[in-house]
């Protein structure tokens, strides 16, 4: 009986962790998306990058490294094209899309499960 109780407890912890994970990623992505949408200056983009790096420990554990690297790369690309309006807008859109994508990937939907 003890093993079953331990197993059930572990299961509940994992389910709880999964729910928390979805909530955390949603909040993080929403926050970064909002900051990015209103970012026009070098300092603002840098603030977004710093915010992204603050969650580095979590992102490296929970997300595919290729996704994390792609977002980091696109953020620096946005910084690079600050002077070019169109390129800058495109780079920002790309980051926003990636942030929404990692948010969607963690949600249980037909598309993500199958």
């Amino acid at each position, binding site marked *: 009986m003890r093993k079953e109780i*331990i197993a059930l407890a572990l299961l509940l912890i994992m389910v709880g962790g999964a729910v928390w994970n979805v909530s955390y990623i949603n909040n993080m992505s929403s926050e970064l998306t909002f900051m990015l949408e209103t970012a026009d200056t070098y300092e603002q983009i840098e603030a977004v990058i710093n915010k992204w790096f603050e969650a580095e420990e979590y992102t490296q*554990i929970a997300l595919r490294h290729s996704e994390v690297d792609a977002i980091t790369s696109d953020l620096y690309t946005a910084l690079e094209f600050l002077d070019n309006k169109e390129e800058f807008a495109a780079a920002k859109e790309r980051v926003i899309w990636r942030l929404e994508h990692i948010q969607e990937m963690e949600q249980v939907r037909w598309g993500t499960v199958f």
Partner: protein
Amino acid sequence: MAVILTRTLIMFVVVYAATRFMGKRQLGQLELSELIVALLIADLAAQPLSDIGVPLMNGLIPVLFLLCGEVLISGAALKSKNFRDFLWGKPSVLVEDGKIDLKELKRNRISLDELAEALRKKNIFDLANVKYAVFETDGTINAVEEKIKPKVEKIPQDNQKKNGEKKDNA
């Protein structure tokens, strides 16, 4: 390289602990659900080892989830016969008192050759001597041979007396 080594060590410890937690049943003849869990764990544990871009959690969490599921399923199977039958099926009697149940053979998709082979592995070469041959839920065939009692001849009374006299004379 160091990352792969560390991941391999962690995964080895976790899978070892998981298998140990599930119990010795995992090492012996596996039931269907146990076989599935064993196969899945092996594959899932290997994924983060072969690709360091995949988070280690992508291997650890499914392994732990399967471990918990297997422990709960086997615990429930222990408590409920109906659940056990639903999960793992029931053993099938293929041969009884030397007679083959062809219906059961067909139902379990076992050929006569396979049955004969399984009996030979149990050192049974004559089907007529088989008391029971059972197809177990773990896929093995167990058989019990009918014990043949040796014929004991009754010595006629006259011969017994004659033998007794001869002994006295000796």
